[in-house]
């Protein structure tokens, strides 16, 4: 056996942009001496390979003959090249997904070279004036994550992992006392409560034996907060009043009472399904992947988007993913290093990692990322939030699934490895400064191309009617997938049949591994052959791992040994109900305004536009493919220079039809700091408003809830959750907008070792609407000088949680309320006016208030405007210019109307608060007359735009 090491680098004088970007990052972490970095891609080939073959592979396959040069060495174990000064080489840890390795093997096979194993690594050679530890320091901070990678110190070749010799492992439970149960739950990372452990002890006492390791792990996965949503589905004593089954009596109740005929499947399947047209339904799901993204942003975010795409593939009989939406919450990317707690990554590194993780996975799946948002707050530093959403389309007949006894269980897609073990239980616990050491296996790297292959073949098999049911392997792996599918029938699984990435996995590890890119199908035996041939034809692995039975038991075998025998009834119904305590104390909202009255608000406006939450996210958006699949109608960036912030995305998923889908989201955690009830109401309305602003129909909107909260063990946090849920019922109902799916993630806290930082209570509302004719949608940029500017909806003195307060360092104030009746009526009339063609641009007023929305409209369109604040409809209590400019009252829009349509527009909007506030100018001036008649904003829109665009660009050096 021979090993060759191949090193590939750019030719001299052929610049490597990766190197330039890395140098900027090195400077950012305060290291100034490094002048140059060479990045070298390293491959080793081991096996049936000669020097000639290795050179051939290097020259014709691995290196680009135009831009790169390669060197090929026979490899010795203790190679001096590893000891080179100022050089660091990084490789993936054993067992971590490395798609490049597999691709190189495939390509060598195409060249006729077989029986050769491959490793890959990356070598960084630093030059400049710096001290000895610098390269290592750079590596630690920027180049690798020890959870998934390591520094190479000696020659590595692909190794075969150790074999596993079976032994049946029983976990002594029935003899344990209560402290013993708690200790077991903690030590084995089951994250079960004592009450739950006691139920398990009682159950096994009754059947007269101890559980096997497999059984205990299965129960822990199935009962985890992540899988069972114990809090949201449970009973809560809220300020002394019992609230039964929180989710069912709030969020879901709104949907049930609204009885929309176009809601096809809600809160049942992997995603909610609504009707699209005569032939198709669409489904929508948003997931979170917060804890993995905190530890390994790139992998965590990538597997987050990968996971939600599998939800779409696993909805009904499988839907085709047609759009991604991503919302992130980070700490401040310009935070000084000293302010980052130990064990947390710097927000800039988190943001870069998350964005590139979503980018690489989403783009490679061929799914356009059409919509998103980013919110910044210091409290997200240790526990960022990564919401990944996906929309799919399916033939109507494929909207439901049904497992039958006798169906075979077929595992499709990626192989099973040790990666992702305990993801479900881990995500149900708090993050600490030690999480990175105890939860390493919960972190994974995804392989989008494997998932793309699954997508291509699965939908082919679906259209041929080759299976009865499908679901994805997400949290809990096979354990959850098979456990849920077989709940009504029972199932037998032969764990040794699951294809493994490497040897040595214990049966329970195979069973609960959350390795990515896997789906589970229920298949009639007579259809198996045809099904397998479909997968095989495109190199997708598919294997029968068991069958669905009729005894309502879950039986697991490993090489003929029975390793688990569980009653489905106990597994799914045995979880003890607990009544949690929740409290809510109304906070006094002080309406007084602490900022002084100013004669001019140019600076405030520019500062808000440049603030992290408002500023342009173009740096992120342009890294996403938002146009693949050819259905893009309203892009995330719009306007004269394609750079204004669109309210909602519009896509046209069927290439032969003008019917479309509108997608938006609402998020505003700062409101939740004052009152989660009004936060929920506000973000529901915001999501709906954005759909209306582009021309959507208020009667065709469905929404998703996604709660990310601190620990709900804390009655105060839980009280906030109850309050927000109650608002979901009240306003979902009032707007006639059903919830169709949702998710919660309830332990978003970071323990610094000195104290616990909980994230702000964060509710993301994602909205989807079907629209009859995409050609009637409008964008938010002003179109033509001379056109009339209207403001719809009343402004109140509501600066609580506002961006104006934030940039002025103030808290307090009154949080915006929602008057659903007034707002719904306004939106209905506006929607009709837009579809009649009376409005040429429209923007909803939200974060930053009127002034920010107006400035965005003007600089996106490239024209200024004259505005009179006195003409805005306002509450009698509003007497200050800054309130009119920056209050974030809900229920408001700015609309641009051609002069010739004035009467018709005003007629269409009769009965709503409407103000004709000004006209679009020919030049670039934004001139705003205050309540007292004097000019209070006098700004150049190009300068405002620059402020708005420069914040992220500057930090990212672009």
């Amino acid at each position, binding site marked *: 056996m021979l090993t060759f090491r191949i090193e590939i680098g750019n030719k001299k004088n052929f610049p490597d942009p990766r190197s330039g970007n890395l140098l900027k990052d090195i400077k950012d972490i305060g290291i100034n001496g490094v002048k140059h970095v060479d990045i070298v891609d390293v491959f080793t080939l081991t096996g049936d390979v000669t020097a000639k073959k290795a050179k051939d592979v290097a020259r014709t396959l691995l290196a680009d003959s135009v831009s790169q040069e390669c060197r090929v060495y026979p490899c010795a174990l203790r190679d001096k090249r590893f000891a080179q000064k100022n050089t660091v080489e990084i490789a993936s840890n054993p067992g971590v997904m490395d798609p490049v390795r597999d691709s190189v093997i495939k390509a060598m096979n195409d060249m006729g070279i077989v029986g050769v194993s491959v490793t890959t690594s990356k070598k960084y050679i630093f030059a400049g004036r710096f001290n000895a530890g610098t390269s290592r320091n750079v590596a630690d901070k920027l180049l690798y994550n020890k959870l998934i990678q390591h520094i190479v110190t000696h020659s590595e070749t692909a190794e075969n992992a150790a074999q596993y010799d079976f032994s049946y492992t029983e976990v002594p439970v029935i003899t344990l006392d209560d402290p013993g149960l708690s200790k077991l739950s903690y030590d084995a990372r089951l994250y079960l409560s004592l009450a739950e452990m006691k139920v398990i002890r009682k159950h096994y006492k009754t059947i007269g034996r101890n559980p096997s390791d497999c059984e205990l792990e299965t129960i822990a996965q199935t009962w985890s907060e992540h899988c069972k949503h114990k809090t949201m589905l449970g009973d809560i004593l809220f300020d002394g009043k019992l609230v039964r089954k929180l989710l069912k009596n709030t969020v879901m109740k709104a949907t049930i009472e609204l009885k929309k005929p176009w809601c096809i499947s809600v809160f049942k399947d992997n995603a909610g399904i609504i009707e699209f047209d005569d032939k198709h339904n669409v489904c929508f799901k948003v997931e979170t992947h917060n804890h993995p993204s905190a530890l390994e942003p790139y992998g965590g975010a990538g597997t987050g988007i990968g996971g939600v795409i599998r939800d779409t593939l696993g909805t009904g009989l499988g839907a085709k993913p047609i759009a991604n939406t991503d919302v992130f919450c980070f700490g401040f990317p310009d935070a000084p290093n000293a302010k980052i707690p130990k064990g947390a990554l710097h927000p800039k590194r988190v943001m870069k990692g998350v964005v590139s993780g979503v980018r690489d996975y989403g783009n490679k799946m061929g799914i356009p990322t059409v919509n998103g948002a980013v919110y910044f707050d210091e409290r997200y530093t240790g526990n960022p939030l990564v919401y990944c959403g996906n929309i799919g389309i399916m033939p109507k007949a494929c909207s439901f699934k049904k497992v039958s006894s006798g169906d075979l269980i077929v595992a499709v897609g990626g192989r099973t490895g040790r990666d992702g073990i305990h993801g479900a239980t881990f995500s149900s616990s708090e993050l600490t400064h030690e999480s990175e050491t105890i939860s390493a296996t919960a972190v994974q790297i995804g392989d989008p191309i494997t998932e793309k292959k699954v997508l291509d073949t699965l939908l082919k098999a679906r259209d041929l009617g080759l299976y009865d049911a499908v679901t994805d392997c997400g949290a809990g792996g096979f354990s959850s997938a098979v456990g849920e599918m077989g709940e009504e029938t029972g199932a037998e699984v032969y764990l040794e049949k699951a294809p493994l990435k490497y040897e040595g996995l214990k049966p329970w590890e195979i069973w609960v591994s959350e390795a990515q890119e896997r789906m589970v199908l229920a298949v009639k035996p007579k259809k198996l052959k045809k099904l397998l041939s479909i997968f095989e034809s495109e190199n997708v692995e598919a294997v029968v791992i068991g069958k669905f039975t009729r005894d309502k038991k879950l039986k697991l075998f490993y090489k003929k040994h029975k390793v688990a025998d569980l009653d489905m009834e106990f597994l799914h119904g045995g979880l003890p109900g607990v009544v949690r305590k929740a409290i809510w104390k109304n906070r006094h909202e002080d309406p007084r305004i602490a900022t002084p009255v100013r004669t001019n608000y140019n600076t405030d406006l520019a500062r808000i536009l440049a603030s992290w939450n408002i500023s342009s996210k173009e740096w992120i958006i342009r890294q996403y493919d938002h146009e693949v699949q050819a259905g893009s109608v309203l892009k995330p960036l719009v306007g004269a220079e394609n750079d204004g912030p669109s309210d909602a995305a519009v896509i046209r998923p069927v*290439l032969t039809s003008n019917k479309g889908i509108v997608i938006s989201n609402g998020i505003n955690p700062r409101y939740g700091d004052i009152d989660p009830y009004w936060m929920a109401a506000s973000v529901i309305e915001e999501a709906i408003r954005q759909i209306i602003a582009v021309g959507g129909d208020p009667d065709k909107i469905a929404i998703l809830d996604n709660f990310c909260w601190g620990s709900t063990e804390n009655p105060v946090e839980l009280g906030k959750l109850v309050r927000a849920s109650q608002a979901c019922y009240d306003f979902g109902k009032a707007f006639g907008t059903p919830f169709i799916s949702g998710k919660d993630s309830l332990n978003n806290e970071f323990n610094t070792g000195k104290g616990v930082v909980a994230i702000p209570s964060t509710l993301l509302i994602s909205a989807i609407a079907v629209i009859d004719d995409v050609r009637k949608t409008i964008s938010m940029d002003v179109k033509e000088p001379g056109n009339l500017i209207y403001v719809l909806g009343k402004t109140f003195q509501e600066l609580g949680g506002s961006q104006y307060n934030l940039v002025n360092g103030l808290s307090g104030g009154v949080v915006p309320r929602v008057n659903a009746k007034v707002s719904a009526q306004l939106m209905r009339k506006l929607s009709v006016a837009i579809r009649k063609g009376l409005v040429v641009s429209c923007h909803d007023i939200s974060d930053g208030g009127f002034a920010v929305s107006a400035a965005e409209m003007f600089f996106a369109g490239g024209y200024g405007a004259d505005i009179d604040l006195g003409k805005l409809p306002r509450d009698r209590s509003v007497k200050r210019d800054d309130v009119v400019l920056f209050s974030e009252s809900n229920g408001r829009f700015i609309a641009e109307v051609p002069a010739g349509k004035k009467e018709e527009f005003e007629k269409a909007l009769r009965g709503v608060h409407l103000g004709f506030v000004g006209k679009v100018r020919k030049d670039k001036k934004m001139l705003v007359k205050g309540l007292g008649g004097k000019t209070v904003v006098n700004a150049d829109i190009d300068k405002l735009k620059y402020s708005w665009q420069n914040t992220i660009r500057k930090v990212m050096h672009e």
Partner: protein
Amino acid sequence: MSKAKALVIRTAGTNCDVETAHAFRLAGAFADVMHINSLIKNKSAMKKFNILAIPGGFSYGDDIASGKILANEMKHSLKNELSEFVSRGKLVIGICNGFQVLVKMGLLPLFTKDELFAPKVTLTLNDAGHYIDRWIYLKKDPVKNLCVWTKQLPEIIYLPIAHAEGKFVPQSSEVLKKLRANGQIVFRYSDEAGNEGAYPVNPNGSVDNIAGICDSTGRILGMMPHPERHIFFTQHPRWQRCVKKGKETGIGLQIFRNAVQFVNKA
């Protein structure tokens, strides 16, 4: 009945196959999407087609380098069929990842027939160091108008790019000179008025602002921008601002129509 029959090849990671086939159909061609495995199993199937399209996407994850593994596979498994397809004067288009495949396989620039499978140019990492999705203007090379795919096309067209490795670099100044002299530079990045310039006008740092090239016969076209993403007017990023009512197609469709017309006239 149109004689034009387009074969759109897909493999693991291809993702613009559906819309590329749709564009050919809108342009009047028959179009079939075929997985590379099926084609390799049934190589003679290529004979039925007179247009070959390698669409955009991330073939095999763009591992090693964009398009490299599919190029390697096609070069080793379909060598004779490709040679025959090209030598019979049939049409080939590679869009984005397909362009990367064509240059890495050496099917472009193909100064002479003997140079088949000899790479002379490359497409490498954008100067920005990452993936970019944005709309750009393209200026047709005004001199020869050699390429059959672009015959009926205005001087300036507007299409999106969406790639990480689109920076065009020739092997040497001789190669560049030859490309220029032969009129093989089909598209250059420019602004709306046709002026060349730095980023973002040239979005990736391509040498000589090159966005697309053809072979010396004008029948094989490779381009980084996506014409199949501008076949409907609603794909234009500013259709609410500047698209005239009644103009229901996007300019990209004309590229597919040119190919169909060429085949039908032959």
